[in-house]
């Protein structure tokens, strides 16, 4: 295997609003717009962003629960969008998902053992004995007692249920697990247990994670690299330490500044960004963040900033902080975007 385990190229998902035979142009929700990233084997990539920014849609696109409007998802170099039924069935073994809600993601009518062994039974026949042995093994792996296999989900706590969800994802021994807000529905103490479980499993089995979250505390704890999304686009993708130490995109900066820190003596930045996330039905022209951005210049209103690689291995989409090579002069009416705005209210906070 050469190259990354998972490679996402220009992934796009537009949801049309209503179907129109009679209407010429149907408005679309740009849930995911031109998203590209890759994940190496054994690596954890976190995708963060506010609610509605397209994080979960990315997860569903990766699992092919929804069909992309454009772009490609490559697993070991194979494009999963082109897979026919049988190939898709076989491919599911490689990639599994842990769902956000530990309550609704488990069938309330099935016992724990049945739930976690079902994926394996989709591929091979198991005798009663084999099934029980497998259920016991999987339960032990996620730190539960094998006696739990006869319980119904309603007889288990939230943390236990989420462990079941993880056990189910582990059943097929996948090389990649997509976790969509996998700990958001849990208490903080249980969150820590589940996160440590995921980290242990990653070390033991070399599983790669795509971890989707809005909780920066969680992300900082587990991520190797972090992708920040805003209105369906990645605005910054950086190694975790670099991102938290020195965010480059103004949105990342605001996001990190807004995250609570357990330190009462630390002075909070006042209102890092103002306003609401614009509607993805009619997103702002140019850089989608410009209406809320303290650094916005004329160019941000007209041109979508490309993702520009920086010296420390990150990519950033910002005309001001990460000017692209061909930016000066081209399409630029308001003068060159000097770094002067960086010294604004936010520059000092860095």
């Amino acid at each position, binding site marked *: 295997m050469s190259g990354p385990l998972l490679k996402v190229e220009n992934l796009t998902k537009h949801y049309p609003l209503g179907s129109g035979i009679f209407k010429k142009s149907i408005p679309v929700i740009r849930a995911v717009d031109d998203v590209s990233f890759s994940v190496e084997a054994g690596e954890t990539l976190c995708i963060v962003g506010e609610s509605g920014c397209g994080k979960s849609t990315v997860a569903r696109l990766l699992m092919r629960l929804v069909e992309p409007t454009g772009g490609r998802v490559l697993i070991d170099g194979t494009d999963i969008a082109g897979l026919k039924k049988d190939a898709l069935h076989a491919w*599911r073994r490689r990639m*599994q998902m842990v*769902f956000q*809600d530990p309550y*609704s993601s488990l069938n309330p009518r*099935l016992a724990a053992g049945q739930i976690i062994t079902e*994926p394996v039974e*989709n591929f091979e026949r198991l005798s009663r004995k084999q099934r029980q042995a497998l259920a016991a093994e999987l339960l032990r792996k996620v730190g539960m007692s094998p006696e739990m296999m006869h319980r119904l989900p309603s007889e288990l706590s939230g943390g236990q249920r989420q462990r079941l969800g993880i056990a189910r994802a582990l059943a097929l021994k996948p090389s990649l697990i997509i976790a969509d807000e996998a700990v958001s529905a849990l208490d903080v103490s249980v969150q820590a247990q589940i996160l440590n479980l995921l980290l242990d499993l990653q070390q033991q089995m070399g599983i790669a994670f795509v971890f989707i979250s809005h909780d920066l505390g969680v992300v900082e704890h587990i991520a190797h690299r972090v992708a920040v999304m805003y209105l369906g686009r990645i605005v910054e993708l950086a190694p975790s330490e670099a991102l938290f130490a020195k965010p480059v995109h103004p949105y990342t900066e605001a996001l990190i500044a807004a995250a609570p820190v357990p330190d009462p003596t630390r002075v909070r930045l006042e209102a890092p960004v103002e306003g609401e996330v614009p509607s993805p039905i009619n997103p702002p022209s140019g850089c989608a963040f410009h209406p809320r951005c303290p650094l916005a210049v004329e160019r941000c209103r007209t041109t979508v900033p490309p993702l520009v690689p920086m010296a420390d291995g990150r990519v950033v989409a910002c005309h001001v902080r990460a000017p692209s090579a061909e930016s000066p002069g081209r399409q630029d009416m308001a003068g060159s975007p000097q770094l002067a705005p960086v010294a604004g209210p936010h520059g000092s906070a860095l």
Partner: protein
Amino acid sequence: MIGGGLLALLIILALAAPLYAGDPVNMDPFKRLQPPSAEMWFGSDNLGRDVFARTIFGARISLVVGLLSAASAAVVGLLIGVIAGYSRSFDNIVMRVMDGLMSIPTFLLAIALISLTGPGIGILIVAIAIPETPAVTRLVRSVVLSVRERPYVEAALCGGARLPKVLWRHILPSTIPALMVQSATVCASAILTEAGLSFLGVGVPPEIPSWGNMISGSRLYLAIAPLTVFAPGICLAVTVLAVNLLGDGLRDLFDPRAKRRR
């Protein structure tokens, strides 16, 4: 569960009819319109037939037609509803057909069908089940539409389950409670429809005793021998009530909120 008990009692009485009830078809011109006696508990009708025996044997027809029509409407409705809930193209076509069926009055459709083939119990069951199917289909489809979006169904797909297995294991079981309740309603209305059709003379063949044709045959003698009309009439009402009570009972059983209230 009064309804269930009452219905079970009716079924046992109907099944055991030959053991204790007399001959329901034997005519005796010398014993026409007799009052109740030790020999004929409910008296006799205008052709001298034992009204008690006829009423008990009539229960067989009502129950068979009611239960079988409800069962066929439930099975067909379940199949079509599940597929319609999952396939958009099939949904568009089939649900329009169902809308069309719903717009035709039950009696009219049943009479039309029976007049094509002539009277018979089989065709009667089909004729009653067809107009009841759309309601079942709609119900099942709506349950499937809501369940298919549940995360555990998506989780099953992610785990590599193929569609038939997802339908069978994760979607079908959720439709059963609503289906059972609806089937009870269908059964009650099928029993009434059968009685109505038999009353009009297009239901079961006239030589077979049924509550509908008993009432129709005896209605002229209501003043002289009221039991000839009231016996089948009251049985009909009690049976329909029992089935409806059973439906209510099932609903309470399956609805966790109703259970908690008690």
